[in-house]
């Protein structure tokens, strides 16, 4: 029983990370219909930036966390402003290749700036444990789960309560109509990219204590992709539920299935979902109108 509970909590924590990165995909996809294959690499950049502030410049964990989120948010907005705005309306394949190229550039940039070693990020939660229902849980895992919950609440409030949030929803529903209503669509796109980059930074910094920081951290993006598809690309709660599902499946298959299944479980689930229910758990799909 203890083992199951332990796996459940670990899976939940890892799943929250997948969910957050998937949330980044979904936000961008909903608003701009661009699929950002560089999302995982944005997360990697975020984790490295926070590491740089904490270890190189000796800023405390919390201010460094906030600074990293702000830095990456500005970077995301610039990315949209300078590069991705040019390809809006182009075929989806163009965008996929463009973001794959950007991801390669980010990885290369990270390994040249911060080196290709593996780093650990010192946090206030390191090496502390609490007993919950007779299971010892390290604070790092709790920080991930709590952080995800807070972030989701903030995002939910933002999208339903603020003017900008509602404008973003309108833009994602119909770009042209949003223009007619006087919404600054270009600004909204940049803001969406900023939020998405910020969210993946939060994911990266929360993940850092349990998974070490290196330039290949971005490959988590592929699993997050699985999560986004599982939840039905374009559904925000779906992304989180999908992420947690993938995290749990990964943990349990690692414990109860033969060696090697842990790494491919996420992809196998992805393939099965795509075959059985291509629209995901929460998505809707139809034929394109001619």
């Amino acid at each position, binding site marked *: 029983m203890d083992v199951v509970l332990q796996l459940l909590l670990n899976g939940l924590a890892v799943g929250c990370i997948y969910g957050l990165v998937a949330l980044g995909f979904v936000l961008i996809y909903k608003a701009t219909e661009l699929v950002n294959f560089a999302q995982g690499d944005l997360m990697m950049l975020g984790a490295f930036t926070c590491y740089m502030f904490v270890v190189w410049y000796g800023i405390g964990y919390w201010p460094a966390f906030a600074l990293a989120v702000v830095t990456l948010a500005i970077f995301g907005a610039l990315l949209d402003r300078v590069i991705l705005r040019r390809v809006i*309306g182009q075929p989806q394949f163009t965008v996929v290749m463009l973001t794959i190229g950007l991801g390669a550039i980010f990885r290369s940039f990270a390994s040249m700036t911060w080196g290709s070693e593996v780093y650990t990020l010192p946090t206030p939660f390191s090496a502390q444990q609490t007993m919950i229902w007779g299971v010892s849980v390290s604070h790092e895992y709790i920080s991930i789960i709590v952080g995800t919950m807070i972030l989701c609440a903030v995002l939910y409030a933002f999208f339903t309560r603020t003017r900008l949030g509602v404008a973003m929803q309108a833009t994602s529903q119909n770009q042209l109509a949003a223009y007619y209503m006087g919404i600054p669509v270009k600004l909204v796109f940049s803001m969406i990219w900023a939020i998405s980059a910020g969210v993946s930074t939060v994911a990266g910094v929360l993940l850092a204590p349990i998974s070490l920081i290196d330039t290949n951290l971005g490959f988590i993006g592929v699993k997050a992709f699985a999560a986004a598809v599982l939840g039905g690309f374009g559904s925000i709660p779906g992304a989180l539920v999908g992420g947690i599902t993938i995290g749990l499946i990964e943990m349990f298959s690692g414990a109860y299935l033969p060696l090697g299944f842990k790494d491919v479980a996420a992809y196998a689930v992805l393939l099965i979902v795509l075959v059985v229910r291509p629209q995901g758990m929460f998505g809707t799909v139809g034929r394109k109108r001619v």
Partner: protein
Amino acid sequence: MRSVFKTSYYQDFGLFRNRTQRDWYLVLMLGLMSMPFLLPAYLVDFSLVLIFGLCGLSLMVLVGYTGLVSLGHAAFLGIGAYSHVYFSQDLGVPWIVSVALAAMVAAATGVLVGLPALRMAGLYFAIATLAFALIIQEVFTRWDSITGGLKGKMVERPVIFGYALHDEAPFYLLCLGCLISGLWITRNLLRAPTGRALMAIRDSEIAAQSIGINLAFYKIMAFGYSAAMMGVAGALFAHKVGFLAPDIFSVLLSIQFLLMVVVGGLGSLHGAIFGAIFVALLPVAISTARDSVPEWFGQIFGVFGTDTGFAVSAAVDRFVKQPGLEPGIFGLILVLFILFEPQGIYGRWAKIKLYFSLFPLYKQATFKRQKSYMKSERFR
């Protein structure tokens, strides 16, 4: 503007536009065949170009002509490579039969994966192939008895009809033969009704379906054909690298193949070859540049005094020797091509040709990209 004067319908069926074009291709082929005598030192790189050309061709049929994006084609290269080595070395099947079997295994896997995957639209298909490639890579790692697992597997030189190709020159000619026959088959496939059906699917699935094209059949055919050609390329690739390990066939290799078709120019067989030349020779060019670029910088900045020259040279040297530089350059080239020349090298070549054939009358706006709004692919 020169145009061909056609006097019979059969001229439209020809492989080449006219006799001049055919003669030029003959000259090119002779030039390539005499490469072992002209540039023996570079044969190692050239045979890789030819193998990559086969890969590019395979992906061009799928991405450039059918409009299906596969993010996992390295998996088929791996399947071809491992099954060829298994058949020819472990089972002792003759070389040619073994290559044919490898192509068949790859095609069968392709069809098997394609059957469910082709129900999905654009992006989902790309993701499904990515997931498939990651699973196949894990299979290569775990299936010790056939693939040798993480220890890898040695590959012997090819033996064809009792004649062992130990030297690079005959192997180069073998690759050249495979690429030319691949080009010939593909060109024939694409100018037949099959090819036109594929292009119709690429341009609009709904329009293609409404004129009676069986979407599922043609998509699966294209996928299987592409996988089979990748299988043949894999067999040659196995001999080329001489040692198979699972991490060769990574997602990064798949992305390099996609880079090949994008940089070469989507929707043209020339593009596949241009892209292959580019992708296969770029690492060679980068490693050459690594040695010479710092010196150039040193000489340029040497104008401001010897010390400055040395300092700049040392700084540039440190910069270009960084291990992470190469994938970054690949990424940068990809981004620049997509932003500024989406038609790739072949598109640029076509533009230059048009410029000269229209000489004083060429208009900048001929190839200008149209500005467009976001076209929603969501349906509500």
